[in-house]
């Protein structure tokens, strides 16, 4: 079911966490709320969940206004950054908690829990306690627990934030596949732009308590609506009056018009792309370029040599985006 947040504001004493924020989460989508810490993304998620009360505005889930409802009446699933595992219960009892509260029959709970444990690949772990699981396993358990009650929407608050890099990448792929299987409307809060780009079909970029841009990953990457989005999403070189992404830097012949010279400071060659650190001869500005692996070799480039670079794809710094 879709979520509609309309004109929500939230203040903590003098601090503005959300300033007149409206977003639309389409039914069945996987949407990421992306932003730096303090941008208000977690507060927005907690308001959707009912864990915080907005000062103004409304939250509608599946056509029902839930603004005044306590969390237990919203029929949502929520996954916390630090798992919030019930430490004194086994994995089985953790996953079945919501069903026990709903007074389902023992047999039904057992079957549903087994089904979910196999969905999150934790079959065989049902009698363990959370302390006996790894971080990634705990988070999968938390996901199964949230899904057990067949929530109308699934809310994930930095779910992979406490995990190490490799587990995080595995779980991202896994989450995306899971979403393809269960199709529940999902909102993921993250400060990691790569995570948002890889997992989500829609991204809401937030900054300073406001929404900066909403769109698909490619829309946001290719047409950032503001300097902030340009700088926050994807890698970027900041020149005094312009931005350019490393892969947009092109090598050229210095005699061509629009081609300027730069000195190669460092070459980092591994994998399909070579990273070249450059200093512009014109003004001493430093920037770096990503080139396909062969191209750097082709130009006979080495540290200290002079090359021609084409920066025509640089975007001028916008004049204050509202």
């Amino acid at each position, binding site marked *: 079911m879709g979520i509609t947040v309309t004109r929500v504001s939230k203040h903590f004493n003098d601090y503005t966490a959300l300033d007149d924020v409206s977003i639309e989460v389409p039914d069945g989508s996987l949407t990421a709320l992306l932003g730096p810490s303090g941008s208000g993304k977690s507060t927005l998620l907690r308001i959707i969940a*009912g864990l915080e009360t907005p000062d103004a505005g409304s939250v509608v889930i599946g056509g029902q206004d839930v603004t005044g409802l306590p969390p*237990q009446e919203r029929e949502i699933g929520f996954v916390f950054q630090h798992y*919030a595992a*019930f430490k004194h219960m086994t994995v089985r009892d953790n996953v079945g908690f919501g069903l026990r509260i709903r007074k389902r029959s023992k047999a039904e709970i057992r079957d549903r829990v087994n089904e979910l444990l196999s969905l999150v690949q934790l079959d065989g772990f049902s009698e363990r306690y959370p302390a006996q699981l790894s971080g990634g396993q705990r988070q999968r358990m938390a996901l199964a627990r*949230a899904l057990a009650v067949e929530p109308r929407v699934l809310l994930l608050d930095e779910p992979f934030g406490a995990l190490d890099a490799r587990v995080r990448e595995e779980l991202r792929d896994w989450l995306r596949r899971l979403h393809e299987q269960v199709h529940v409307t999902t909102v993921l809060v993250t400060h990691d732009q790569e995570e948002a780009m890889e997992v989500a079909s829609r991204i809401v970029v937030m900054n300073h308590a406001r929404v900066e841009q909403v769109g698909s990953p490619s829309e946001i990457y290719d047409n950032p609506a503001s300097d902030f989005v340009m700088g926050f999403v994807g890698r970027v070189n900041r020149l005094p009056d312009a931005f350019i992404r490393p892969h947009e830097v092109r090598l050229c012949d210095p005699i061509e018009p629009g081609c300027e010279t730069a000195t190669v400071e460092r070459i980092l060659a591994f994998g399909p792309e070579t990273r070249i650190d450059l200093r512009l001869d014109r003004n001493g500005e430093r920037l770096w370029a990503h080139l396909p692996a062969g191209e750097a070799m082709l130009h006979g480039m080495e540290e200290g040599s002079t090359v021609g670079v084409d920066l025509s794809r640089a975007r001028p710094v916008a004049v204050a985006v509202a």
Partner: protein
Amino acid sequence: MNVRNDLLGPEASQPPAPAAQHRQRSTVLLRTIALLYLGLLVAGPVALMLYRTFQDGLAPVFAELTSPAFLHALKLTALIVAISVPLNAIFGVACALVMVRHQFPGKRLLDLLLTMPLGVSPVVVGLALVIVYGSRKGWVGPWFMEHGIRIIFATPGMVLATIFVSLPFVAREVIPVLREIGTDQEQAARILGANSWQTFRHITLPAIRTGVAYGVVLTTARALGEYGAVAVVSGKMAGRTETLTLHVEERWLAFEPVAAFTTSVVLALMALLVLVLMRRLEPREVS
């Protein structure tokens, strides 16, 4: 000689390297000090008391254990513990929840009031209760008296005094545990559909169980052993308002040392029993 060998351990038989020898010597020294200290102040007196209790055989002990005054004191102590410990446990948990999970004006004051019974001398507590509940000149005492309820020099006053002095223990034990477990688990339970009571019953209470258990042990120990506050409000009437601690004093002053020792041993055993029971109740921690 056996004891000495145990203290020094097996390494003592072979000469160790100088540094290790030094370390070993300081360990032995520390161990000796600790054992001496505990021996002189705890083990020695308790052992001597046990010895004096059974010095003249079992007959005088049995006579004391079956005397009406002792039996009444035992019943009264049990009654006071049975009322004050559950009340303080419930109040302590509620107080801890309010202190940790809620923000409200006057929180500092509540915190202070919750600590006060630890600091105020029990005699002062007793006197304060007399001023409020005294049946003739007290603040609300005369009103209760008109309705046939005597508080001071009767069981209600002794219960009140015991509640007062043993009030902070459960809350003080539970507050840090609540802080440590945080609110994530409770919020997760709420989102999964649990109401406040279900969340408390299934999530919060199991998480703070150890803290509550320790608090109850301390409360019970204090309630069993309280002397000063209870002495002031009880009037110390043998067979009527005498708890076990008051009975110990009364027997001692009546030149009946064996009776006093016997009751003391009973008190000590009760405290020990509480400790053992609580150890049993502790959750099997999974690490």
